[in-house]
């Protein structure tokens, strides 16, 4: 279970990334953030976001048009 949950369902690019970044900033290092999105573009975007920022993408899954990501705050 992630430490914090972020619901960005219904929001489009770039809001899921911007809101995730805002949430991560307030979280202690090592904490995990679970993001739930409906934007299919978020899949590649969260991969790119994590690669570039150095945060760890622990999980990325698609189910019933819902995209769930778990990001560990490591950078």
């Amino acid at each position, binding site marked *: 279970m992630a430490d914090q949950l972020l619901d960005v369902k219904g929001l489009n690019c770039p809001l899921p990334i911007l809101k995730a970044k805002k949430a991560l900033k307030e979280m202690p290092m090592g904490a995990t953030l679970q993001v739930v999105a409906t*934007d299919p573009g978020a899949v590649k975007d969260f991969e790119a976001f994590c690669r570039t*920022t150095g945060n760890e993408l622990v999980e990325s899954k698609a189910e019933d048009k819902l995209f769930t990501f778990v990001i560990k705050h490591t950078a």
Partner: protein
Amino acid sequence: MADGSGSNTKSMSMIVTKGSLDWAYPPFILSTTAAAMGLDVTMFFTFYGLPLLKKKLDLHVTTLGNPAMQMPMFGMHIGMPNLVSAIPGVDAAASAMMKNLIKKKGVASIEELRELALESEVSMIACQMTMDLFEYTTDDMIEGPVPGGAATYIETATKSDINLFI
């Protein structure tokens, strides 16, 4: 601001030259996203891009000069020929339709993205020459942007990893 000297922080600069509702999106989407990804971002607002810094925004789209424009309507895509822009009310209707779609599809408003850009410390330069040319004062503008000129932008651009003209 980009410093480029020994720091590992990547940086991006862009010249923002267009101020219609549709063209306002790319610069604000890219600047907020780059800032969220840890880049130092500088935006230089010039000519028709400058009014995007006004306190109160009233943005529109036009079909004129936009030959590829299509709107989803009645389950299909309707083309918007250049010429229909001459019919009174068409651009206003297209703008209203666009704003409606933006809301419906969960796309951020330009005001919202601009606020997020300022929050994430995106540097904004307001072209001084454009302000003189079109008679804008800093009182017309939001707080945050600093007036500057071409040399100010070029200095930033020489130190940036990504430079865009939009």
